[in-house]
């Protein structure tokens, strides 16, 4: 029955010729998205001012070079360990340290003393990594993500060049700050000889991470080859200061009852 309707409509359009009404755009969730008032306008002054003065300013002014510490929760199992290693090859200037029962609050002052800029903690459950805590160290925001569908790398290894970073679809204020957190992980000057790109793509509040190698086959065509691990993140909470579960000041928490009700409302 639908097919019949479609055929009829197409015939009508062809019959009308030039006077036909414009083609109907299919409704997608992205089209129907509830308008979020905190959407960032690229020309927004307030946002630009905020960015210049918040915790990432030294990074974006190229005063600090990112140095990252990757660690896990207690007793990491095989998959998590391998994932940590692969992550450390993907992100330049990163070190993996194992944690044998050390409290995070005690690690943080030590990290600051040793000049680390970011801390990544991968939480594990039943032998697979399922959570990620990313905190910018000198008193920066802490983001807690839920990690799902982790795929480890197969065979091809990335080189030691600094990759480029692509951040897609981070529209709202919250998304903007999260995006800048991700950008602060990578050094500022990508080496284009390396032809590697790390992508953080936000779609409906899920952030997909991919790591590719690209070549330009011609002016209009580019070929990409996936290498490196892939995972998806969902933001659970964002804290103002460094990691502190009890006394920290939360900027944003995902409240399931309130925020998951509408299918067309997204926050990132």
């Amino acid at each position, binding site marked *: 029955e639908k097919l019949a309707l479609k055929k009829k409509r197409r015939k009508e359009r062809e019959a009308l010729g030039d006077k036909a009404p414009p083609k109907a755009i299919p409704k997608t969730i992205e089209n129907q998205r509830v308008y979020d008032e905190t959407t960032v306008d690229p020309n927004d002054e307030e946002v630009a001012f905020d960015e210049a003065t918040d915790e990432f300013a030294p990074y974006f002014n190229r005063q600090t070079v990112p140095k990252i510490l990757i660690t896990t929760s207690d007793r990491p199992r095989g998959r998590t360990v391998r994932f940590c290693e692969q992550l450390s090859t993907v992100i330049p200037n990163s070190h993996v340290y194992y944690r044998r029962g050390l409290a995070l609050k005690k690690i943080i002052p030590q990290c600051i003393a040793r000049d680390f800029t970011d801390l990544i903690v991968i939480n594990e459950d039943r032998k697979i990594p399922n959570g990620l805590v990313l905190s910018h160290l000198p008193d920066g925001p802490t983001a807690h993500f839920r990690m799902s569908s982790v795929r480890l790398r197969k065979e091809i290894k990335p080189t030691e060049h600094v990759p480029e970073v692509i951040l897609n679809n981070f529209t709202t204020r919250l998304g903007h700050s999260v995006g800048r957190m991700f950008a602060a992980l990578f050094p500022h000057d990508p080496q284009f000889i390396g032809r590697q790109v790390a992508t953080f793509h936000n779609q409906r509040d*899920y952030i997909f991470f991919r790591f590719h190698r690209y070549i330009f086959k011609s002016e209009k065509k580019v070929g990409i080859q996936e290498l490196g691990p892939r995972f998806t993140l969902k933001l659970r909470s964002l804290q103002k200061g460094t990691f502190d579960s009890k006394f920290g000041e939360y900027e944003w928490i995902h409240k399931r009852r309130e925020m998951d009700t509408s299918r067309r409302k997204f926050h990132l």
Partner: protein
Amino acid sequence: GRCYLYMKTIERAAFPRRLWERVLLSKNYEKALEEIDENLIYWPRFIRHKCKQRFTKITQYLIRIRKLTLKRQRKIVPLRRKIERREKRREEKALVAAQLDNAIEKELLERLKQDTYGDIYNFPIHAFDKALQQQEAESESESDAEKEEEDEEDVDQREFVEADDSDISDFEDMDKLETSSEEEEEEVEKKASRSKPKGKTPLKGPARRKRPYIEIEYEEETEPSAKTKAA
């Protein structure tokens, strides 16, 4: 956690409330053992021994509890199955909607257009078309510029290719891409050259001389990798 000693006397079985007698044991481990002994004085030896063993175990686990509460506690949060399924489903749909490969390719092409990569990538066809389509009065200066560009191109491309020689394994995979693209390039180039015979021959002269040179370069470079593939 303090320990108590409870004693049951069968004579009092009729009164359940008064069935058990309670004695508070001291905190000191050895003193408590003595107290057990003196309280259970007329009881069989086996029972006394077992009671003391139990008491030892209890004190040990109390000590462990106290130590653990001082360390970090792991909070166990229950997963809700319905919510988890919902999230999984939404993630899959988001993945499909995202079309990551296309998005990444578009982004890269845009960056190429906006010249963020500088002069590393030079595509002779497009530059050539642009040059022809723009003002013809500037053709001479442009041809000079193009000669220079193409000189740089040779050098850059030579560097480009040599840098990649180190990862031959990558090259083997990319080989298919590159050979096919290179074939396309050749075909397109030939077509372009054929379709513009009416164009300026003086312009074309140096360009044409340069182009087959470039093509030969590519072919040479891909041959050894092809050989390694066969081997």
